[in-house]
């Protein structure tokens, strides 16, 4: 038991992200409303973004903007140590991932609006019933 506890304390960030991700996955599987499914998808994406950002973190390091490098050519005379700056690569990947998640969320909302316009509902079971009633073509 104490082994497990020390493991959790050492890796608590990953545990939080896994729990968050599973909340999102559960919402995507079990919720009946399409908008709630989309919210679950966003929670899932947020968990992945947090996971990547935490991978990039280094102890005793600052944000990945080189200090005193604004002056011009002679500014980088000082040696830059990689251990002083956190890893920029996960930040870059997640920056683009956030924008793409906004874009996919927009498209998903547009599809939900279309579904609502046609079937007057966003609940999945009612949608299934109406699909049987109306058939694929109106």
């Amino acid at each position, binding site marked *: 038991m104490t082994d497990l506890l020390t*493991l959790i304390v*050492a*890796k*608590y*960030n*990953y*545990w939080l992200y*896994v*729990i968050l*991700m*599973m909340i999102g*996955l*559960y919402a995507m*599987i*079990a919720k009946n409303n399409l908008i709630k499914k989309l919210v679950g998808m966003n929670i899932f994406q947020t968990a992945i973004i947090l996971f990547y950002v*935490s*991978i*990039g*973190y*280094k*102890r005793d*390091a600052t*944000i*990945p*903007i*080189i*200090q005193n*490098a*604004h002056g*011009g*050519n002679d*500014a*980088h005379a000082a040696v*830059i*140590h*990689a*251990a002083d*700056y956190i*890893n*920029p*690569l*996960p*930040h*870059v990947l997640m*920056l*683009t991932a*956030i*924008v*793409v998640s*906004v*874009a*996919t969320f*927009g*498209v998903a*909302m*547009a*599809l939900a*609006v*279309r579904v609502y*316009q046609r079937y007057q509902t966003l609940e999945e079971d009612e949608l299934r019933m109406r699909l049987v009633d109306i058939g694929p073509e109106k």
Partner: protein
Amino acid sequence: MKFLGFIIVCLTGALLLYGTGEFPGWGDPHSPASIHLSNDYIEKAVEQTQVPNLVTAVLADYRGFDTMFETAVVFCAGLACFLLLRDFKEKKERFYRHTPTGVILHVKDSKKVLKTGKEFEHMDKDWVPSDLIIKTICRILIPFIQIYALYVVAHGDFSPGGGFQGGVIFGSSLILLAISYDLKVLVKRVKEKILGIFSAIGVLIYVGIAAICMPMGGNFLDYSKLAPLVPGDPHHVRALGMLGVEIGVGIAVTAVMVIIYINIVSEGRHEEGL
């Protein structure tokens, strides 16, 4: 279904939690993610690109292709929203408000169009007078938000920021205008055609800057070959190329944010909505 879903989630979660045992500790400087490529980025980026903000340097230069297609993805999302939702059919019923008296006219004949101007105002069916406090505060705030957005884009090379962030802030200022006033106010000021053109121009600026490098004798996206075109210090040409690219990204993201918002809230009709 709920129970089955819960079991699946528990199993997947347990598997992932078991996997975390192999992961590097929190903030470990020797974790695998921080020992290979990222050290090169951190130590050489300023020397190679003259850009102190490493995130921008990696985003717009080392991984330029990735960002270019990312911008194309954003453009495609705006296009998909437009094609899915846009509805050009005119509504049969219209509502007008006589501004001096506040009398509301309900016109059922779609052919009868009142001239909107000083006297009559085209309005939504479930229109409520907008709150004076909200309107005033937003009118004061919006210009500052927009200037901040431009600052974020322009200083993306030197401080936290860049095209994506600045574009989103600028787009949200326009969305704030639509929320605090009326959708019509936004659509009247920012025409749909202009939004469409801007979202394409943003992508075009990016691809254009990347493509100009080829006739100048370099590879696609090799900003250093732009030096003869740019006045000033040739050492900074990579930073300037990145700035141009970020401006393109900002324009595209702004336009797409507003396109997505307008189409979703008005269900594609651009007349009524939040």
